[in-house]
């Protein structure tokens, strides 16, 4: 099995299996086209911890700690646990914040962008287009020598922080402690809205662990896929997202959850339109939100799923990026920048533009001459 996952065929085999698991999780309770969404799930975790108080998106999604721990255990088992860090951590934190803000303007990370397409949500095509443009801008900076600097090897214990945080999140999920008056202090669990929809806990945790393992071995990365294809003509990671999307589409089709269109059912006389799940139709900001995310992920070296996997391998810089995403999620909701099914938030456009300026500045100013 490991030989297959680490071979050239690894990414597309892992991608296909992850796509199948994603649709299964949505079938068993996760929100529509949201079998996996690193951005949405991290946002839900921020809500459960009380970092934001948007009552409909608060849940300790076990898939996220599952990714980290699956990767951690896999890295330990295959002797790839390698604590490292120190490559412009504060900048990576900022990239994580803005990557999340862009993703929450679009309503999904790159994984969910492909899953939305696989479910027939054509609004997501604008997001995928934006993602590709963001990656292309990032590639332009990389060709001109962009670098956040070299990381260094860290003491063995340094890589344990993110896995320990993952264990703490799972403890909070299973014990559901309250730290004050019941209902007024974390841990918060949504009783309505997307946060209340979830697959059974052990199923979701098991899925996260398996995906963490598969992605750690195969290097599955939804941003690296586009980057390597555009930069080097190397399609081996790209085959991963093709398999991911095609298998998810086939599974949706078989389960009757493939609903092609910008809405599931158009409005008719006296009947409201049925929108695509957790999606809006403001295509300009679907596009620009993902331009921002794609650029931030490319500058940081990988998609949000990949950042979680690297954090599990002991990469503190990836861990800092993940913590930036967590804070970005809180900012998105506290500052009215997150989108909803009704459209973008009052500050959604502002944070997208600010984020693009930040990322372009990072791309321009981090070009050290390296001999």
């Amino acid at each position: 099995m490991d030989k297959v996952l680490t071979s050239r065929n690894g990414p597309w085999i892992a991608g296909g299996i992850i796509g199948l698991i994603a649709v299964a999780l949505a079938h068993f309770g996760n929100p529509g086209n949201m079998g996996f969404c690193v951005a949405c799930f991290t946002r839900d975790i921020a809500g459960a911890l009380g970092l934001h108080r948007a009552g409909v998106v608060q849940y300790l999604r076990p898939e996220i700690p599952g990714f980290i721990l699956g990767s951690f255990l896999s890295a330990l088992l295959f002797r790839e646990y390698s604590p490292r860090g120190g490559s412009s951590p504060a900048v990576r934190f900022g990239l994580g914040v803005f990557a999340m803000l862009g993703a929450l303007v679009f309503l999904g990370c790159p994984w969910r962008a492909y899953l939305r397409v696989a479910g027939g949500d054509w609004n997501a095509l604008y997001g995928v287009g934006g993602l590709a443009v963001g990656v292309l801008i990032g590639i332009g900076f990389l060709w001109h020598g962009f670098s956040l600097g070299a990381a260094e090897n860290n003491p063995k214990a340094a890589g344990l922080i993110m896995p320990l945080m993952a264990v703490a999140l799972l403890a909070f999920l299973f014990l559901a402690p309250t730290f004050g008056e019941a209902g007024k202090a974390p841990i918060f669990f949504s009783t309505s809205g997307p946060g209340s929809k979830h697959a059974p806990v052990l199923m979701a945790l098991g899925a996260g662990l398996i995906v963490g393992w598969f992605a750690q071995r195969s290097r599955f990365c939804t941003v690296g896929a586009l980057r390597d294809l555009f930069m080097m003509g190397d399609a081996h990671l790209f085959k991963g997202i093709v398999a991911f999307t095609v298998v998810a589409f086939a599974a949706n089709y078989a389960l009757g959850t493939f609903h092609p269109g910008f809405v599931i059912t158009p409005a008719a006389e006296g009947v409201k339109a049925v929108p695509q799940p957790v999606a809006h139709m403001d295509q300009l900001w679907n596009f620009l939100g993902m331009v921002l995310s794609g650029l931030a992920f490319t500058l940081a070296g990988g998609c949000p799923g990949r950042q979680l996997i690297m954090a599990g391998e002991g990469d503190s810089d990836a861990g800092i990026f993940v913590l930036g995403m967590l804070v970005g999620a809180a900012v998105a909701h506290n500052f009215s920048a997150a989108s909803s099914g009704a459209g973008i938030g009052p500050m959604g456009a502002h944070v997208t533009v600010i984020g693009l300026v930040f990322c372009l500045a990072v791309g321009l100013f981090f070009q050290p001459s390296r001999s």
Partner: protein
Amino acid sequence: MSDTITVNASGLSCPQPVIETKKALSGLSSGRVEVLVDTATSRNNVARFGENKGWRVTTEEREGGFRVILEK
């Protein structure tokens, strides 16, 4: 072996080790290039890039990472 070019890509994020390798190989029709990396992912990426470009690739462990040797 006196003409070995050494590329220190240790600690760099994806895809910078491959970019540094590509720069070192550009204009070289033969020779020996050693690329120093710190993670298995970078080792695999550089090795795959070298193989795709027709170089003979060997890898070995070193203190703090790996050495990818490209020869043609």
